[in-house]
């Protein structure tokens, strides 16, 4: 590339690099630096070395929040991606009413978080909510399902509450859905015509054509969703459970950070948690990348 070409490339990169530096890199470095201080957002920060970290390690609430976040990510991410992929494959062709179906699928993503939370508050109501009403349809006795076991108590029992949060997250897949729809639409149709000629089954087409071609985007979405699941503030969860039911069963790390930073005014401590979260996320993404690389080698033969 010669000088004038380089200049153009630099120009096109400039806003992005500026934005990254100003809005991401510098703030991140500041926060990560503050992780080694005691800071209440009012008086100047005071350096305390790794005390925040040693305290975090012993902090039970942080431990719970960490486990909650990890479990949530491990369970929710594959389910979300799977749902987005299934919907994308269902909705990518044009047929009557397709606009309505696609809009319906994106709806939960665009509803304001508060309203979304209220909605689930009603849906999950153990006594009157439609979900349990449906589950109890043929059961004999209060709270018993047709299969005999008790309907989940949703928001009042710790594990049920965690499950509820996961269920809630399954529907806000609008972004992944849009990306996958566009990707699927851009795949060359000749391959599918060929498959039709070879009388391939749905599963074979999916496994040998669709999946490999969409793999790069799926992996990008995987990284994105993993990050999101580990770090999202998840306001609807707040509306629905406020971090409970006791004790902290739906407190995730972002909530932990938020509380420590802005309610308890321990920004240094919160920053330490943030730094740890960043490193953990990076490690997980890196591990994903390595696994994928090994898989790829197995696939491309």
């Amino acid at each position, binding site marked *: 590339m010669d000088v004038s070409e380089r200049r153009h490339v630099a120009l096109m990169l400039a806003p992005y690099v500026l*934005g990254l530096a100003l809005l991401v890199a510098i*703030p991140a470095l500041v926060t990560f630096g503050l992780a080694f201080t005691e800071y209440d*957002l009012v008086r100047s920060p005071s350096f305390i070395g790794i005390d925040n970290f040693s305290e975090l390690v012993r902090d039970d609430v942080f431990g719970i929040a960490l486990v909650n976040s990890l479990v949530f990510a491990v369970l929710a991410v594959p389910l979300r991606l799977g749902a987005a992929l299934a919907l994308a494959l269902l909705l990518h062709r044009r047929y009557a009413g397709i606009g*309505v179906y696609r809009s319906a699928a994106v709806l939960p993503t*665009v509803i304001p978080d508060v309203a979304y939370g209220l909605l689930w508050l009603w849906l999950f109501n153990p006594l009157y909510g439609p979900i349990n009403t449906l589950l109890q349809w043929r059961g004999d006795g209060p709270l018993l399902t047709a299969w005999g076991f008790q309907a989940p108590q949703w928001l009042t029992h710790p594990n049920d509450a965690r499950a509820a949060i996961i269920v809630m997250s399954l529907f806000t897949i609008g972004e992944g859905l849009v990306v996958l*729809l*566009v990707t699927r639409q851009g795949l060359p149709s000749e391959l599918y015509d060929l498959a039709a000629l070879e009388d391939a089954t749905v599963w074979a087409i999916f496994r040998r054509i669709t999946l490999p071609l969409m793999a790069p985007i799926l992996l990008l979405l995987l990284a994105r969703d993993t990050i999101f699941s580990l770090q999202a503030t998840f306001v609807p969860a707040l509306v629905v459970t406020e971090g409970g039911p006791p004790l902290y069963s739906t407190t995730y790390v*972002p909530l932990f950070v938020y509380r420590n930073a802005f309610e308890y005014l321990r920004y240094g401590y919160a920053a330490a948690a943030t730094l740890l979260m960043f490193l953990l996320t990076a490690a997980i993404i890196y591990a994903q990348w390595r696994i994928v690389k090994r898989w790829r080698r197995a696939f491309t033969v």
Partner: protein
Amino acid sequence: MRAGERSWGGWRQPAAIAVAVAFLLPFWYLASGSLREPGAPPPRAPELLPRPLSVESYDRAFELVDLGRYTLNSLAVAALTVPPAVLFASWAGFAIFLLTGRARAVLIGLSFAALMVPATALLVPRFAIFRALGLTDTWAPLVAPALLGLSPFYVLLFYWSFRRLPRELFEAARLEGMAPLAAWRRLAMPLVRPVTVAVGLLAFIASWGNFLDPLIYLFDSDLYTLPLGLRSLAVLDRTNYPILLAAAVVSTAPVVLVFAVAQRFFLHEDRGAGWLGR
């Protein structure tokens, strides 16, 4: 009969209908809930249409807070944010595509690193920066993320889309002396139109639903956007569901409309452009 159609059988459409119903029913609850009189308690049993039907909640919502103005504000912020975001994201994606080896790897790595930084790490320092610049209580902090295309994710999406185009197209253009910016405008972008519309759509959704930034930076209620309006209503009366739901509907409807219209343009079936010359 298109490839794959036979193997799905006639299942596609009924399945889609089932999915749509599953997604729409809860929303119907919101909508019907908003059509009740203000202050009415939520119904015990789910009902299709409330009795008595009333749009008073909408009136009240617009009275209690300046919802009309907030809607316009949200629109204005989106108009200021989305086009530059799409532009800068596609620029950056294309630039990364043009680069090779080391430089490209570094930029992709930085993009991922930026994605991994938790939002919570950025709140306070960013606020400090904008306060130092005297830009708090303006829309500037809401629009500024357009610089990085709103998210490195969109940059990477554009990069990947450009990569799928035949490399020889750009080599032919380079041979004729076409500058990178011109190649971006006349070759790359026309060939990735669906992705551009998709990114625009996602950016619009993100901007419209952005709650945290307006909460932190805006104090003058004249500048408030819709999410803040919703919050103000919730603060005023947390249990007045019909009014809250009315505001939620007002908040959601424009986005759904935009999506319903846009999805026709970028999701119609098309022999993927760029697969020619073979």
